[in-house]
């Protein structure tokens, strides 16, 4: 408990809305724990009763603050409630994004130091960033409120779709930014986008039967093995040939059709959505 109190004049000014936002925030924080100042505010004539004032204060300090991603979504017109649901996902936390950024920067440094083989390292890692993000967007092992969420009327299909889109739109620009200092042909910076999109679409389509983390792990292992085999054969960029790109596009479109076409009545690896 502090001995400091806001002066009556400053409290009246706060009630009248005549002070700056920083001082107002300070007074609101103090008011939440100070009965003496709450009483002064309640006695000011030109506001309602003490309960109304106290409720207004609580409305400012109690709600969960949105994280950076949530604030951006709200700025783009999403309701704060939906922004809170969508942005509360581990694969959008600062620590995760920092990890992704660090891995990609490492890959770019490797590419610049090791030449063509280094470029292959970047192209190996870049598609996995959005894939892993999607895998950790929704699921029993990821979301502590997963089971409770399933028992609510909110559309889980919509939640999965929004969170996945958000993860993809956050990680892809991150990887594209990381690719800017890449000392390689221009197409390298974008070549990984098609496999990345296809991998994410396959993971989402498979959620009907399998947890997304399992699908993402299987795809990652297959992708790394394919790269290793290609490098061993002396063609580290074989996974980015024209034929491979067409295959990614076909698989991606097919998987997206399966996912979007299955509708909200379907199951999420055996659980009801």
């Amino acid at each position, binding site marked *: 408990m502090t001995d400091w109190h806001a002066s009556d004049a400053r409290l009246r000014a706060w009630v009248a809305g005549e002070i700056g936002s920083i001082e107002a925030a300070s007074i609101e924080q103090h008011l*939440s724990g100070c009965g003496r100042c709450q009483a002064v505010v309640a006695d000011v004539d030109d506001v309602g009763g003490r309960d109304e004032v106290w409720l207004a204060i*609580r*409305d400012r*300090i*109690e*709600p*969960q603050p949105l994280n950076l991603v949530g604030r951006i979504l709200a700025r783009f017109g999403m*309701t*704060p*409630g*939906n922004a*809170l*649901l969508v942005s*509360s996902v581990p694969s959008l936390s600062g620590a995760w994004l920092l990890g992704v950024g660090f891995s990609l920067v490492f890959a770019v440094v490797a590419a610049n130091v090791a030449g063509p083989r280094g470029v292959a390292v970047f192209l190996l890692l870049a598609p996995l960033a959005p894939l892993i993000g999607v895998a950790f967007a929704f699921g029993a092992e990821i979301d*502590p*409120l997963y*089971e*409770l*969420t*399933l*028992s*609510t*009327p*909110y559309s889980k299909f919509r939640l999965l779709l929004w969170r996945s889109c958000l993860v993809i739109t956050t990680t892809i620009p991150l990887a594209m930014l990381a690719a800017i200092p890449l000392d390689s042909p221009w197409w390298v910076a974008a070549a990984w986008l098609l496999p990345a999109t296809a991998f994410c679409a396959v993971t989402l389509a498979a959620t009907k039967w399998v947890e997304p983390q399992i699908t993402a792990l299987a795809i990652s292992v297959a992708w790394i093995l394919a790269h290793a085999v290609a490098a061993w054969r002396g063609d580290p960029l074989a996974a980015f040939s024209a034929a491979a790109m067409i295959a990614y596009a076909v698989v991606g479109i097919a998987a997206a059709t399966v996912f979007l076409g299955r*509708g*909200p*009545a379907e*199951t999420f690896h*055996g*659980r*009801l*959505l």
Partner: protein
Amino acid sequence: MTSHEPTAAVTGVGKRFRRTRALDDVTFQLSTGVTGLLGPNGAGKTTLLRIMATILTPDEGEVSLLGRSVRTAGQRTEVRRRLGYLPQELDYPRGFTAFGFIDYMAILKEWDDRTGRHAEVRRVIEAVQLTDVSAKKIRALSGGMRRRLAVAQALIGTPKLLLLDEPTTGLDPEQRVNLRRVLSGMDATILLSTHQTEDVEALCDRVIVLDQGQVTFEGAVADLVATAEGSVWMADEPDPRALAHWKAGNGRYRHVGREHVGGEQVAPTLEDAYLLMRGTTVDELEVTR
């Protein structure tokens, strides 16, 4: 206030997890009021509640809740709009305050209007007596407070069907009494899964006993207690012939068993009847708790 019109019906429900049969031909009906669900660990109580909470699909049988089948998506969503569910264990999102968590759950329950939602969040937080800590981070709350917070989310929107899995775990006697007061004041169908027979005795008018995935008793609490009539004695010395015996607070030994072991016959409790029904010794009961 209890109505005997069935509001939930579970008919021939079976559920298997690989080789383990969790539920086998489970059939019962619920009506408005509080029904207790008793049974040892592994009896299938949590699986049954998860099926009724529309999280799991049964392998066999039908579940009708509030007059709707849960097989179709539209009907399921309608049920979920009137459903409150408390899981046995609940992890909380990192960094959330008590208010933030309940607010998050209220958004999932389609409380879109911010002002109305916040009023509802405050109402349920007050119902579990957590108003003073609503702005605190959940990680700073005690185990009992966290459990009450979990109960609070189940109360959002005053559900017509409330499924509670071990709601009194970790609560002190005063908090348990408050929870009983809140639940007994609701006009809803409440299924209360618990190991605490005293909660069932205090709150429920009906009880279902589940054992090894099957219903072994369904009826009034008084009827279950009556099955132990004449099978409970107090004596000065323990008698190993009894199914169960333990030293009571008055220094005498309480015996439960079909076989008369002497001493003074006393009125049975629900716990006595439960022990007798399961043929369980006190040592076994302690293991299952």
